């Protein structure tokens, strides 16, 4: 009996070790580690912080070594050029870059690609677009169109005779121009329509948004529809409207971005009527996954990936697809 017990014990031990070895073998099937880089524009704007954080989490989940670098401002070309060279020297075989210039970085990007490095532009395109392998970004025209559609339906519901103020970005910046174009299409008007009483550049800045809006209101106190290129400009415009004692219930203020500050402080109480949310999370997540997959032998990323846009409002307009403020709070970027 004792001999039998010992025999069974030995057999059980052998089986256990065999099982352990099989389990170890199963665990060893992890993806090959690859190194990629992410270069953003700056870290003051929470948009870029969110992009970096999601990229880091996605890299961790996908066994990817992620190098990160950032500039000091939206126009800091020099830092991005240095980061590109540094990352290639450190072995990055794929790079995600949000270019601070559509053209100034082209020589460095071309040099990287000649060395076999895959490059995806995120958020902002380069010119020509095929200077990079792929481009992952918000469809800015679609974002503008969504807020334009919302504004026109709301204007009809409020029985307003549209007097539109457009607070744009700056001349020559493609994302701002696409948003502007989209708004006009969504609203159902063309450039030069008499309903547009003012068009100013704000550089997407809150203070400029406020001062330019105050100037517009001084000249056109009857403005009842305000388009803003981004939420800092919208918050500035809102402050000017409040200072001027405008009837916010009969003024439609729309914007584009999806930052947490504006969603919680202005969209939730209804001060900004609607905003088109873009998703830097998707640019980062899809970018890291696409590079990791390609570097492991999968398909090379190519063309344009629309990273999504959703209209966020607490006061939906009939016939215009939108998500509620809770969705906005859950998916906004920043704090």
């Amino acid at each position: 009996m004792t001999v039998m017990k010992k025999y069974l014990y030995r057999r059980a031990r052998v089986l256990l070790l065999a099982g352990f070895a099989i389990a170890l073998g199963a665990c060893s099937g992890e993806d090959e580690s690859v190194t990629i880089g992410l270069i953003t524009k700056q870290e003051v704007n929470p948009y870029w912080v969110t992009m970096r954080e999601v990229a880091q989490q996605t890299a961790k989940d996908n066994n990817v070594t992620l190098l990160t670098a950032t500039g000091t401002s939206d126009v800091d070309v020099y830092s991005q050029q240095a980061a590109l060279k540094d990352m290639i020297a450190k072995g990055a075989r794929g790079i995600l870059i949000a270019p601070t210039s559509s053209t100034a970085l082209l020589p460095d990007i071309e040099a990287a690609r000649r060395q076999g490095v895959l490059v995806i532009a995120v958020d902002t395109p380069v010119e020509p677009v095929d200077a990079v392998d792929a481009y992952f970004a918000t469809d800015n025209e679609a974002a503008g169109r969504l807020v334009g559609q919302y504004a026109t339906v709301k204007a009809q519901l409020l029985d307003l005779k549209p007097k539109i103020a457009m607070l744009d970005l700056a001349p020559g910046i493609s994302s701002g121009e696409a948003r502007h174009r989209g708004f006009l299409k969504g609203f159902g008007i063309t450039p030069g329509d008499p309903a547009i009483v003012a068009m100013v550049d704000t550089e997407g800045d809150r203070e400029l948004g406020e001062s330019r809006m105050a100037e517009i209101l001084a000249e056109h106190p009857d403005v009842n529809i305000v388009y803003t290129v981004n939420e800092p400009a919208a918050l500035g415009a809102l402050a000017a409207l409040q200072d001027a004692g405008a009837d916010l219930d009969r003024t439609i203020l729309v914007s584009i971005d999806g930052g947490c500050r504006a969603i919680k402080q202005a969209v939730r109480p209804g001060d900004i009527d609607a905003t088109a949310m873009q998703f830097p999370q998707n640019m980062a997540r899809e970018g890291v996954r696409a590079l990791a997959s390609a570097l492991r032998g999968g398909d090379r990323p190519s063309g344009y990936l629309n990273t999504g846009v959703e209209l966020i409002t607490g006061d939906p307009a009939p016939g215009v697809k939108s998500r509620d403020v809770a969705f906005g709070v859950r998916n906004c970027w920043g704090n």
Partner: protein
Amino acid sequence: MAEMADDDGPESARIVAVPMRIPFILLVLCFTAWGAAANLTDILVGVFRGIFDMSNFQSSLVQSAYYGAYFLLALPAGFINNRYGYKTGVLVGLGLAAVGGMLFLPASQILEYDMFLLALFFLAAGLSILETSANPFVIAMGAESTGTQRLNLAQAFNPIGANIGVLMGAVFILPALTPEASKVIMSEPELLASQQADLNLVLKPYLGIAVALILIWIAIMFRRFELPNPPAVGGGPAASGNVALRLWNNRHYRYGVMAQFFNVAAQTCIWTFTILYAQDVVGESPENAGWWLQASLIIFLFSRFLMVWLLGVFRPSRLLAVMAAFGVLCCLTAMFSLNLVGLVAVAAASASLSLMFPTIYGMALQGLGDDAKFGSAGLVMAILGGAIMPLVHGVVMDLSSPAMGYVVPGICLALVGAYALFDLRNERSGFVDTGMPAPGGEAS
């Protein structure tokens, strides 16, 4: 196996006599298992809302299925115990709950919300029978004099299970869910694949619970032991027709049942929607939101110890009134402070909940004498509040905002406070302390 009486001996003075240790441990595992299952369900409301893209009202049906089953099975469970004994009751409960856990398997393949509700109904039905049987079973496992201590010891593992349940959700489900933002750009086939992957995440903890329940079932089924203090089996004293009328005419009892209904309602609402509040109002990630629910349960656990001490200092109804007022304050803060302060208030509301179930239980049964045995059933069935009021909370969220939903538990807690004030202002005639321990039948 026959359940036989044991001779009184030195062993009977112990809380758990040596021969009863293994059976007692098995029942303790039951207490832990139903605590885990109940609070894992709190996480499911938000998870299903995301996976099936539903309204808050629709996702709240999870709690209706769960607590509805608890309510509906309370009386049949009593019948099983009376007719066939506690061990049979425990085995039927474990078996049914395990079937419910296993039903998650086909549900996750069919990808139908209704199938998950059915699985939850079976799971909760089993746990209802299990709970109804396990409480008196534990009491009968030793001398009558140590019954209350034994039950309290076993019940101490219920909140531990509750924390394990939330921990499973926070660790295994919430962090791995498909991010909502990424669904925005998914094609239909990609969405379907993500739905399947997310439902598989839900499946694993429930399968784990089902396997644990089956193992406990086998261990109890084949463990031979003799109860030293067995109940009479095969009938038992039925309540006379006058008892129900007497109880109904007793305002302390009648209002007590109502207060218990609103207490369970408030507790279920607060815990069910903690995760949704953290996400929808404050913008926390799903995994962080899970930790906030975990924090609520820990507050509940520690606060309960504090309340036990305070109940020795203050009159129960006075303490109940104060804590109900605190709970209302927390709900008001949650409604109007749409930030971290509001979220802290939601978590802090668990402190107010911690004393309510046993305190209302004791207050309502105070002075009832033999009628307390029948009256306790009414108090346990007040768990129906957990099935109904989360639906109302969900509707308010859908029609107004996630934060305003907290008006529902706020009103519930105010009504509990009103009961405490009623008790303070209306002295009872013929005070009799029943000495009955409150069961662990609260929604934890």
